[in-house]
């Protein structure tokens, strides 16, 4: 124990979470630190490196800027849990429950009778001048009067050791999913430590949330349909939305997956519209309905407010709950607690002053340097201001803006946060820390998550704790006073489980994304195989006459990438290696191209992110590694290294297809992905054949060899024919042979099977795409290929060219038909232009 602790120096002037004033370890930290010390520094670092890799590969991210998918940052987690003593936690929990009760009462009053304003208890500007007060939500009456189903509260410890509320989060209380993921990672990394410390489990909190959401359903039925509404992958905590969806077993939806008809909310699925009972939303209040809330938001569902008013759907937290997290309300909550609940507040609030009152404003301006200045109303992107760091003229400017519109500002006491030990470069180092705690409603009260999301500053001297600014996170451990009850979200007895094989909830958007995921993966595979065939010829020892097929292959590669091939790369038998290498690197890595390998893998990963709740963790890891593999080679210009990378990509891409086939249930979701995969393969391989085979010159044999190599059918051909490659058997193998998994016929048969299966969806029946697809299968299998191999007077195969083009066109048509039938439910919407404002 001494080895880890002896060098640990608490930050002077701050409360130390781990060390008491006498310099010894506080008792509730002892068992954990003892275990940690037993591991030794090397073992901790080693385990933690594993954990960090898992975080990266599992794609746990926090999207910092909210507008670029590339700004997604891996989640920062510290291995040392934050310990909180059970007795203190009991006290905190009571305080949190009281706060949930209070915030709910304030919401009910503000959206109802407004007695707080009428009696002059609360300055009316706080509600009436508040953008978060959404007048159109007043008629919404949530079940049991509970506006808040979930609440998150940021707590920080004052220098005297008291836990105090810093911020409430009522609109989209995020972080619970991250807390759970942190717990899984830390407990997996240090299983013995976790077990021996007897830490309270988190699962119970989530099963309570699940139960509560079920209870909220306006229709009493066995399986209410509950969805999680996310603003999409650009949201900073999209990872958490997908994670919770998978953990809780609810579909993750976006605004355009839902529609309001007859005051009811429906999920647009492949099988038609499915009624939604409860929405757990992770989208801001004002973004939820362009009709009655912010008309400029593209994320909402028109008519959602009306549906909520009519009680046909329940939204958790209720629309308009963002009002309760208004920073300017903070200083009033203790008084409101006494007034509304007739109780003394059990948790302190960080001392805060609202400048909208004269006395408070004057006091703030007089002692400006003691405070942090923040915006009084939510929704402002402006950062907190620390006046003591300001230049004199900036300070003057700040005072002017406060005096100009004082109600827009609050001042908070600027005191050092407590510090907890973090694992930095092989030792324990103190970092300022905060915790985010969570409360969930139940039918007869509230329940607190026994744990939470710990957050730490990135530097010892930084008191700003924020995920956006590069801080880290911690698991929070509350030792149990008695034995741990095991709870899992999986039902324990098998008898009362309703067997289900359906994919009732597969939305058209998700099907569309899976379809394109399949297409991009296949596009990447063919690009990779093509490139590998070329690189082998460039890097391996060449034949005496050079490799005559290279010119053709490079031209075809250009066509595949919509790029003209460069002239003079090869003046047989001499290859201009520098220029060829540059051309190939450009084709692989150029970020400006839309069809190249780079784009295909980027798009596959991007789409993969949107359907994370539908694909397995392993599948996601492959998508991640594909991207990393490519990025890692981006700076290479040695063709051998690039060839190695291509080999690795082939393995990963094959693993992706294998996993898809083996580990996804062969339901509709899989069928859409596979259909995309097959369509792309059929089109691309017909296209490559058309480029390489229809204008043969004197060097046809090596071209045919290459063609077989691209389609990985070389071995099959050799075992069948044991002779040099000829055009007719090659065409038979690559087009018509439905036993060859690379042939066009093989792809078409599978597509045909998928389409047949999809026709079993309710209300579909015989379909145009089914007719087209069957026709296509016959067209390819029954065709007499020997009719089209002939060469005309100028040395071309016009019939073959025409035939392949016909196949390409028919497959493309089929793709359009599938798209029209299943995937175009996401109709464009327009706001009614309202020129009726008045004309005179």
């Amino acid at each position, binding site marked *: 124990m001494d080895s880890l602790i002896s060098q640990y120096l608490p930050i002077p002037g701050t409360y130390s979470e781990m060390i008491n004033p006498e310099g010894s370890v506080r008792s509730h930290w002892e068992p954990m630190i003892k275990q940690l010390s037993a591991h030794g520094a090397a073992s901790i670092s080693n385990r933690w490196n594993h954990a960090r890799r898992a975080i990266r590969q599992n794609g746990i991210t926090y999207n910092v800027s909210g507008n670029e998918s590339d700004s997604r940052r891996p989640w920062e987690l510290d291995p040392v849990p934050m310990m909180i003593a059970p007795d203190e936690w009991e006290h905190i929990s009571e305080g949190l429950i009281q706060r949930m009760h209070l915030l709910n009462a304030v919401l009910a009053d503000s959206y109802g009778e407004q007695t707080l304003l009428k009696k*002059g208890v609360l300055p009316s500007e706080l509600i009436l001048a508040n953008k978060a007060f959404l007048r159109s939500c007043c008629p919404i009456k949530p079940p049991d009067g509970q506006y808040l189903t979930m609440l998150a509260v940021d707590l920080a410890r004052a220098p005297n050791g008291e836990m105090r509320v810093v911020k409430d989060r009522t609109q989209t209380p995020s972080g619970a999913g991250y807390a759970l993921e942190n717990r899984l990672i830390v407990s997996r990394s240090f299983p013995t430590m976790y077990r021996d410390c007897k830490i309270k489990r988190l699962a119970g909190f989530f099963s309570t949330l699940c139960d509560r959401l079920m209870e909220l359903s306006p229709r009493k039925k066995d399986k209410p349909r509950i969805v999680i509404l996310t603003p999409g992958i650009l949201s900073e905590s999209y990872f958490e939305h997908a994670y919770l969806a998978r953990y809780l077993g609810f579909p993750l939806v976006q605004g355009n997956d839902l529609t309001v008809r007859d005051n009811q909310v429906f999920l647009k699925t492949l099988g038609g519209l499915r009624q939604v009972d409860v929405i757990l939303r992770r989208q801001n209040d004002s973004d939820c309905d362009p009709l009655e809330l912010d008309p400029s938001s593209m994320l909402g569902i028109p008519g959602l407010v009306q549906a909520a008013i009519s009680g046909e759907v329940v939204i958790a937290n209720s629309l308009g709950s963002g009002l309760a997290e208004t920073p300017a309300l903070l200083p009033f909550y203790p008084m409101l607690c006494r007034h509304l609940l007739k109780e003394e507040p059990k948790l302190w609030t960080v001392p805060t002053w609202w400048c909208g009152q004269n006395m408070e404003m004057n006091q703030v301006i007089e002692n400006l340097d003691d405070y942090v200045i923040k915006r009084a109303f939510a929704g402002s992107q402006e950062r907190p201001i620390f006046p003591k760091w300001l230049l004199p003229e900036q300070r003057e400017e700040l005072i002017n803006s406060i005096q100009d519109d004082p109600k827009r500002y609050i001042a908070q006491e600027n005191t050092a946060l407590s510090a907890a030990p973090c694992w930095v470069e092989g030792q324990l180092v103190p970092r300022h820390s905060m915790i985010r705690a969570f409360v969930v409603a139940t039918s007869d009260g509230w329940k607190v998550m026994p744990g939470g999301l710990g957050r730490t500053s990135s530097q010892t001297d930084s008191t700003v704790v924020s995920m956006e600014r590069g801080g880290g996170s911690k698991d929070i451990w509350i030792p149990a006073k008695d034995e741990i009850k095991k709870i899992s979200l999986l039902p324990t007895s098998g008898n009362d489980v309703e067997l289900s094989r359906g994919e009732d909830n597969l939305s058209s958007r998700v099907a569309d994304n899976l379809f394109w995921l399949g297409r991009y993966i296949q596009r990447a595979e063919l690009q990779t195989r093509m490139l590998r065939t070329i690189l082998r010829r460039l890097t391996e020892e060449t034949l005496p006459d050079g490799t005559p097929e290279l010119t053709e292959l490079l031209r075809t590669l250009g066509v595949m990438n919509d790029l003209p091939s460069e002239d003079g790369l090869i003046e047989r038998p001499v290859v201009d290696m520098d220029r060829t290498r540059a051309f190939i690197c450009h084709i692989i890595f150029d970020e400006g191209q839309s069809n190249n390998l780079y784009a295909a893998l980027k798009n596959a990963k991007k789409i993969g992110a949107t359907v994370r709740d539908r694909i397995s963790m392993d599948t996601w890891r492959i998508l991640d590694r594909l991207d990393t593999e490519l990025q890692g080679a981006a700076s290479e210009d040695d063709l051998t290294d690039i060839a190695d990378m291509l080999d690795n990509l082939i393995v990963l891409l094959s693993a992706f297809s294998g996993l898809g086939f083996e580990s996804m249930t062969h339901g509709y979701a899989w069928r859409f992905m596979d259909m995309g995969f097959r369509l792309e393969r059929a089109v691309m391989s017909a296209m490559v054949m058309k480029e390489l085979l229809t204008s043969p010159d004197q060097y046809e044999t090596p071209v045919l060899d290459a063609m077989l190599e691209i389609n990985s059918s070389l071995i099959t051909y050799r075992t069948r024919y044991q002779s040099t490659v000829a055009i007719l058997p090659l065409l038979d193998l690559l087009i018509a042979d439905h036993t060859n998994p690379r042939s066009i016929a093989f792809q078409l048969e599978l597509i045909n099977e998928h389409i047949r299966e999809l026709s079993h969806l309710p209300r579909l029946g015989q379909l145009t795409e089914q007719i087209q697809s069957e026709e296509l299968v016959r067209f390819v299998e029954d065709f007499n290929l020997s009719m089209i191999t002939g060469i005309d007077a100028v040395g071309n195969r016009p019939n073959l060219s025409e035939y392949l083009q016909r196949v390409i066109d028919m497959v493309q048509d089929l793709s359009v038909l599938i798209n029209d039938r299943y995937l175009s439910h996401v109709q464009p919407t327009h706001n009614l232009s309202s020129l009726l404002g008045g004309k*005179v």
Partner: protein
Amino acid sequence: MFRLMPRELPWQIVQESTLTVFPEPSVLSERIDYFGNNVVFCDIEQKHEVMHVLMESVIDIRPRPVPVLPGMSWDAVCERLRGAKTSEGLDAFQFCFASPGVPLLPESKAYCIPSCKPGLSAHQVAIHLMQRIHTDFTFDSAATTVSTPVKEVLKNRRGVCQDFAHLMISCLRSVGIPARYISGYIQTTPPPGRARLEGADASHAWIGVYCPVNGWLDLDPTNNKMADEQFITVAWGRDYQDVSPVTGVMFGGGKHQVRAEVDMIPETELQQAQQQQQ
């Protein structure tokens, strides 16, 4: 969503109001919004290329009360309302602040200041301001759209009723006088001896300004007059967004056009017309 049905007011007794929508909506529900306006929510499920909305109302219009001047000094109003505990006071207080469609700009404050002479009442300041806007600004239906910001109107000095209403509200609120946006209909007077033209009346926008002593006064900056029996009040709110007569979302492609006509027919003329038809 429609806000087309007139409000019930002491000088505006609504005897009957019906709203008909074609094609037949699958949902047609009425409610009263936060400001007390009549809202109709409708949902049309069937495919359609044209939608008709007809609002018919029989209204008994009486003379509005003669405004009492002066009233409370303009610079005392806001402070008085801050401590207001009555429903009326709280209701008026919310019209003191910036709202989504009406920012409080330094420019609008600067424009308002010349009207704010010491000792004038809130209503007097508003009337003076109305006269200035009427003189300084040109009516120009081509100059703006529904979403032209106040700043631009102030710069270009042209616009339509909605722009003048927003501008005037921004001016008044920026000096602490509560002001609300009113949408409604206005009767146009035909030239002497001519018959009233069908559809010549119009949807219109004007403002209300509040004085804790004398209550609300409706002023029309576009026509430089106080609202009278030619004005029918439909809805009020903080700005256009709160009272927009028709809002909605359409599914499917294609462009669309909106056309509106208003007829305000005195009962006597209506009876004549009916007799002629018989």
